[in-house]
């Protein structure tokens, strides 16, 4: 046949992507191309995906270095200064909450915790674009949806403590919240499974001639999972009213995003294989996140179908309380992250537009801290993982089925309940 003499070629070798830096190296984000705030166009929501491909390879940014909201995405934003101040408070509350829960975990009041440090803007801002009845299918790193959605902090704590006021009756790992009322689907420990469920939920809404939309959430690393593909296939085929959010915080436990992303420049690009309009957004810019969320949710609401949105951010903390990131990345990498801190950036914006001051910020910080501490006391007064009022183990046999079948009744009896 006509094949080349293969032995003339050099032998094959396997390419295994590596991050630019490892512990001991100097942090380097020079590869992250950051366009100036306001520089990216804002197409109409019904634009042909093929004509807005560039939006998956850039970063939509609204807040510039001076704290000004600039450009077309800023102009289209629907939010007033009160809303922004509320947003700031949500993010600050989440950060304070995280800090307290981390300590509580170290004090063994709970077994486990996962924080949001550096990623607060994403869920907090996105939540504003949703309407009552919409449903999020979150990962473990979207507690901001609950806080911004008005879910009681105390109930969140009770869940983390698995105490008697935990609505999940101690059955779920800490942070695996659930609240139908607050549009927050029960979190699964299994990655990506809920991405396709979100699409199914949205299809259900469309089948029913409803108005409600769904939001799917996934991490950069988890886009590699197969259910991510299932979701994109179904969403694009049936034009499901769903926003397909990807939180690219650069890391999946110890694995850098290059392993999941493969050869494509971005995660947003995945949408292009399916003809789904895709945006890439500054995840540390509250206003940019909100602007993108409003664009994408409006598409869904107007039955224009799914949107992929990649939020570029950085997981400043450990993956979870079981993780020590200094083993696989330079400790200073977080500080070198070029997109800054989401809380600081929104604060600076509010100051820049004359709606906020350093002093009010310090005061708000103190208030929030006090409130979180107070709430924590109340939650702990009920109980923590090993102390106080906790759900009865008898409850362990409930809710396996709507009605307890004989073999479970028998086992509960055998267990002594």
């Amino acid at each position, binding site marked *: 046949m006509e094949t080349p003499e293969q032995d003339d070629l050099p032998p094959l070798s396997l390419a295994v992507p590596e991050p630019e830096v490892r512990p001991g190296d100097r942090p380097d984000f020079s590869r992250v191309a950051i366009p100036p705030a306001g520089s990216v166009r804002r197409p109409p929501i019904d634009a042909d995906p093929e004509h807005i491909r560039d939006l998956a390879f850039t970063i939509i940014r609204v807040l510039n270095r001076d704290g000004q909201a600039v450009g077309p995405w800023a102009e289209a934003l629907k939010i007033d200064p009160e809303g922004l101040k509320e947003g700031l408070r949500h993010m600050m509350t989440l950060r304070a909450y995280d800090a307290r829960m981390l300590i509580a975990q170290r004090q063994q009041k709970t077994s486990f915790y996962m924080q949001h440090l550096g990623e607060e803007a994403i869920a907090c801002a996105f939540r504003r674009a949703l309407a009552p009845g919409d449903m999020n299918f979150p990962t473990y790193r979207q507690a901001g949806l609950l806080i911004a959605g008005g879910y009681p902090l105390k109930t969140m704590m009770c869940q983390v403590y698995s105490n008697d006021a935990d609505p999940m009756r101690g*059955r779920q790992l800490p942070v695996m919240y659930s609240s139908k009322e607050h549009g927050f689907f029960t979190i*699964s420990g*299994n990655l990506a*499974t809920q991405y396709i*469920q979100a699409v*199914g939920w949205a299809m259900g809404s469309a089948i029913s001639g409803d108005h409600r939309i769904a939001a799917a959430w996934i991490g950069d690393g988890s886009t590699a999972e197969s259910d991510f*593909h299932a979701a994109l296939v179904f969403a694009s085929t049936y034009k499901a009213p769903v926003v397909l959010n990807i939180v690219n915080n650069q890391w999946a436990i110890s694995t850098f995003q290059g392993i999941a992303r493969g050869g494509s420049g971005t995660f947003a690009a995945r949408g292009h294989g399916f003809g789904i309009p895709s945006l890439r957004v500054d995840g540390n810019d509250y206003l940019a996140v909100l602007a993108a969320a409003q664009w994408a949710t409006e598409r869904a609401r107007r039955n224009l179908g799914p949107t992929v949105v990649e939020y570029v951010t950085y997981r400043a903390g450990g993956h979870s309380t079981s993780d020590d990131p200094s083993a696989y990345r330079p400790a200073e990498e977080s500080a070198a992250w070029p997109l800054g801190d989401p809380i600081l950036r929104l604060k600076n914006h509010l100051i820049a537009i004359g709606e906020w001051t350093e002093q009010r910020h310090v005061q708000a910080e103190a208030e929030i801290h006090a409130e979180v501490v107070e709430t924590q006391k109340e939650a702990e007064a009920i109980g923590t993982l090993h102390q106080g009022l906790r759900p009865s183990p008898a409850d362990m046999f409930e*809710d396996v*089925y709507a009605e307890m079948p004989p*073999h479970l009744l028998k086992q509960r009896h055998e267990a002594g309940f």
Partner: protein
Amino acid sequence: MPRMTMIEAIRDALDVAMGADPKVVVFGEDVGYFGGVFRCTAGLQAKYGKTRCFDTPINESGIVGAGIGMAAYGLRPVVEIQFADYMYPAYDQIVSEAARLRYRSAGEFTCPMVVRMPTGGGIFGGQTHSQSPEALFTHVTGLKTVVPSNPHDAKGLLLAAIEDPDPVIFMEPKRLYNGPFDGHHDRPVTAWKAHELGEVPEGHYTVPLARAVVRRPGRAATVLTYGTMVHVALAAAQESGVDAEVIDLRTLLPLDLDTIVASVRQTGRCLVLHEATLTSGFGAELVALVQAECFWQLEAPIRRVAGWDTPYPHAHEWSYFPGPARVAEALRQLVEVA
């Protein structure tokens, strides 16, 4: 009463359910326009529109995952996996999600979904169109697993499954679709219209889940079985001359243990029969339960007859299939133990 094949009975159940409840939606590979490779959904798209009965991309995880989302939304999806052999890509969604949704959300989100799948061999389908993976479902708490053995039960059980508040795995023995097959593959095919259980009431009725039924009363031994093997067991009882009581379990989980125990305590001998591979099959659970509940009444070790522990081999189908000769021999040996 109309006589139907099992395919028609299943289609009729779907029709009744879709007619009664707009929340019932039906989808899967080739399920919409064409009506399914076994035609169980034929006509439903034309009747109920393509947003209630539709074709899906070939992604079983997507089919079940989307179904879970719809069920959580408030619909009652009835999804089809084209062959039980192709349920594995959906296994994670079934086990990790559908089965645990109610539990982990403490009842806030639930999954009233039915996953239908043709199961079993006997059609020269080879390794990938013949499997009986029920034991992979019965080990998963939170699921219910149903295997009908005739058109009457298929319709009634499917309606019960659709109305059930929890996820139900509904396994359809494909070799029974068109007639009651007793394992005599070399004899002329019989049709459901000649069988009393081919009589299917019109309109709505249910056969409740978790209820077994005695298909043949007997005093010498008890045969515990389900699906295609019910008919094989009946033939074997006849041919062996052993007066066996044949119990059709119908629902494997939750199991109707009372009916089982009552019978074995009477007969003192028990044979467990299924088409799935032997080791760690659902038969093992049946043996474990029966020996625990009937130990003092047992006069002989409980026997299992099952598919061999090999993949289902295409050309050797009838050497693999636990047919009436093997079952009859096992029955004879069972009653001979003194």
